[in-house]
Every structure is written in C-alpha cells, then in structure tokens.
C-alpha cells in the first residue's frame, strides 16, 4: 500500500520567538527553520511501515513556500521515496492545507495518511481531522502505536486520563503523538541519496484549491510578563512566603 506523510516547515522548536514591533506577527526572518517535530515522527512511522513490508511506497507532501523543499529533502533522507511540494507564497491556514492535501490524496490514492498531531507554530491541531472530514475517512489522532493488519489499522491513542485503542477501516488518517516513535538521525549518505529522489511541484491553482485565509489576524502581542520572582534561602523561608505573602497554602 501507499502511505503519505505530511510535513511542515516551522521555526525550530529551540528558538525563542520574538513578536514584531508592529504587532503583525512574529519575527521569522533569519531564524532557524526545521521540520515540525511531530511531522518527523509521522515520516518515521511511515518509513517503519515500509521497512516492515506493510507499505511499498512512502510519499512526503508539504505545502508552503519554495523553501519547504528543504523540509521535503529531510523527509526523503529519513526514507520517504519521493516528495510532492504544493508551492505557494500565500500564508496557509489548516483548512486550506487540508483542501490541498485532499487534492493530493485524490491523485495519489494512498491507504494511509500520517500527519503530526499539531504544528508548533500555530498550535492549531486541526489539519489531520479536517483532511479526514473532507475525504470522509475515519481518523485516529494522537497515535502512540500503529498496527496495520489487512484493511484495518489498529491505533492506540493518547487521551486525557490514559490510552484508548481504535480500529479504523482503511483508507484512514492518523496523527502522530510524541511517543509513537523516536525519529532516526539522518546520515550524510542518506542526505546525498535524498538529493536524487524526485520531488513534484504542484500549485494550488493546478489542484483547483483557493488557499486564501479565512481567519484574519488583527494583531500579535507578547503575552503579559510575570512579575519578577525572588530566590529564597531555605525551606522555612519558602513556607513562610507561601503562607503569608502568596497565601496559597
């Protein structure tokens, strides 16, 4: 079967972002960009399915600017067979990405699409579910284990209070949680090999999707700063502060 892994280029998770002075957004020029950490887990899961002999073909798909090609190359170095870039300079929101991915899915006809559970920039946590809805496919979000047997995917999900197990009839959508796997490091030989793997470029126009935003961002601000704290010398001083100053115990 064919598996699609969707990947997004985001500000690296270690970067402490700054809000722009004009409140139009956050500063992302000259900031290190990487593959969204949850998408790395999604690609790793897809590649492992291939290594198990469950999947034959792993396609990495990204939607965004031309620089998203770098992110696709990382996915190819992890082990995806080829890439598809839906290239646009329009700032994409989850609904637009879900529609673009639907168009790609309809062309590629995969049995499984794996996405990250959320992107660490917009923290929306929507795209996988929206794609499932648009396709009319079943979904399992926050997956921590994937087990494919014939036409059925048995997925363990992380939910509030514990774990739950669902069975989905393929084709289906799965979003990856942190504990699904430990993504492998990409090695230099694999980075070199990834350069030779094919990447198809699509556009929203060719896919017949209007990528325009539906939500307008009026402003982006710094969160309210906390008043500076103090260091206390010992446990007695801490208990005294909590009882008499903060009055929380």
């Amino acid at each position, binding site marked *: 079967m064919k598996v699609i892994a969707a990947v997004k280029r985001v500000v690296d998770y270690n970067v402490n972002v700054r809000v722009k002075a004009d409140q139009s957004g956050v500063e992302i020029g000259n900031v290190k960009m990487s593959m969204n950490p949850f998408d790395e887990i999604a690609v790793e899961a897809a590649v492992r399915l291939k290594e198990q002999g469950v999947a034959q073909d792993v396609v990495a798909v990204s939607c965004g600017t031309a620089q998203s090609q770098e992110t696709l190359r990382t996915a190819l170095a992890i082990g995806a067979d080829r890439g598809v870039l839906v290239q646009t300079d329009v700032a994409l929101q989850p609904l637009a990405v879900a529609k673009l991915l639907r168009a790609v899915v309809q062309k590629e006809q995969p049995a499984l699409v794996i996405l990250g559970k959320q992107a*660490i920039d917009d*923290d929306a946590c*929507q795209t996988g579910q929206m794609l499932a809805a648009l396709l009319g496919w079943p979904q399992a979000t*926050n997956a921590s284990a994937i087990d494919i047997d014939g036409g059925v995917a048995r997925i363990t999900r992380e939910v509030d209070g514990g*774990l739950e197990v669902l069975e989905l009839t393929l084709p289906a959508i799965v979003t990856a*949680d942190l504990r699904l796997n430990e993504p492998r490091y990409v090695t230099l030989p694999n980075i070199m090999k990834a350069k030779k793997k094919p990447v198809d470029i699509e556009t929203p126009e060719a896919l017949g999707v209007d990528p325009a935003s539906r939500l*307008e961002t009026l402003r*982006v601000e*710094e969160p309210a700063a906390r008043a500076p704290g103090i260091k206390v010398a010992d446990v007695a001083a801490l208990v005294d502060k909590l009882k008499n100053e903060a009055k929380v115990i």
Partner: protein
Amino acid sequence: MTTLVIAEHDNAQLKGATLNAVAAAAKIGGDVHVLVAGANARAVADQAAAAAGVAKVLLADAPQLADGLAENVAAQVLAVASNYSHILFPATASGKNVAPRVAAKLDVAQISDIIGVESADTFQRPIYAGNAIATVQSADAVKVITVRTTGFDAVAAQGGSAAVEEIAAVADSGKSTFVSREVAKSDRPELAGARVVVSGGRGLGSAENFKILDPLADKLGAALGASRAAVDAGYAPNDWQVGQTGKIVAPQLYVAVGISGAIQHLAGMKDSKVIVAINKDPEAPIFGVADYGLVGDLFQVVPELTGAL
C-alpha cells in the same frame, strides 16, 4: 445568536471543562445550549441543565455515541449545527479530536484554544507555545471554536434549570470501532482542574525517585504532573505531561521540582498564579518564571518541605 457547547463527559459525569466552555459562551453573548452526545447519558444531561447560564440541553443518546468516536460525534453536531452561530468545544483531547471535523464539514476555519473573547467574531489565542498571543477575527457564518479551559473561570455547576430535549441520534459511521480504554487510576485531583500541582522533571532520576513527590502532593492536596523529559524517560505516565503538547494547567500553586523549564514546558504552566521552582542549577530557565525559587538538592529540599507543611 445562539451558542452550542459540546459537553465533555464519560456518560456518567459531566466534566468540569464543559463549565469553562459555557463561561466562554456566556462572554460571546446570546443563548447557550449544551449538546450531550453519549449512551445512557441522561444523568450528564441533567447535570448540564443545572449549570448556570445554560438555556437548553440537547441529549442524543445511542450506543454508537458511547465512546466519543470522532466520526459519530461530529455527525451528531452537524445534525443540529444549522441552528447555531457559534459551536464551542472544550480544548481537551476529545474536543480537539472532533471540532476540526465539524469545521471542515461546514467549510469554516476553526479557532483553536481561545483564551479571550473580544467580540462575537474576535478572539485571542496563544501561538508559538504561548510566546505570542494572536487576536483573530473570523468572517465565517458559523464560528467553530475550542476553548482553553484555563482561560475562563468555570460557571457554577448548580443554579440553572434548563430543559432537556431529546434529539434523534445519528447512525453509526461504520468506519471506526472502539476497542478498549486503559484509564490510569488515581485518587488525586484531576491535573487540569487541580488547585495545586506538584510536577517532577528529569532531575528526579528514576520512576522510583518520583515517589518522593507523593507525600508532598498528599500534604498539599495536589495533582501530580511531569515534564516531557520525565515522561519520555518513563518516570511518569504520559497523561501527567504538562506543556505545549501535554496538558495546560493554571493552578493557584505550581511546584516545579527538578524541571529545567524548557519553552515547551513553560507553555503548559506559566499562567499559574504562584510558581515555585526547586532546582539545584541556579541558571535553570524555570527560575525566570518562578515567584519563589529555591536552589538546592531536591532530595533534601522535598522531604524537608513536606515536613514543614
């Protein structure tokens, strides 16, 4: 203008997160209705009807709604969606699972994790792990929203007297099946709603050492939490994780023990009223947000603190 709040429940008990979502609905204005989709969930509907500010409760009761499968619950919401200007879910694991499915079917953008309501179409939400707050305006006819529960004080669970109206349940989608659930048993308060949270990090060193936090949590009546590092190392279960990708908490008192304070962890707790950090590294970033910091060996400080309470 009428708002529909989707109730979070386990078929027996209405979860507190629902009351926070009702509070957000009240800020938007207009009537507030609550949808309870479940199996044998009459008791939940009655509890929702008693919540302050709820005008009507819709109850869809059928076996296929028992386990909160996204396909079935989303279809149930869509069956009544045309009557509403706003559809609100608590931003819990189940709310986040279902809401985008509803939004996509309605062809509207979803607004995730709101922490503030500016007007009926303008909302505040955190982005970049809470390092920036975006104010967004929706031009869509129906606003589908998830509500960060720590952003709104819960409405009173008692005092309301809404009517409960039974509605027809949608058919089973047949595309997904619930197999099993493994719920971690705990006598402690629920992490997301606890007044006090005691959290441990990698500094604890092992699952065995993590138990050093038990007596402290008992003394404080606290829920236990953990950093991602502690969860990944197997010191604590997954559902204790506090942070951008785990639970978001805002208790009265948050005690961070052996937690360095990575951006991703701070995203989950920096709205706590009082933060206490216990760490042996005086340079740990957690001290940057802590109201009271104590530099020291947690294996000495924690028992001493427990004893002093």
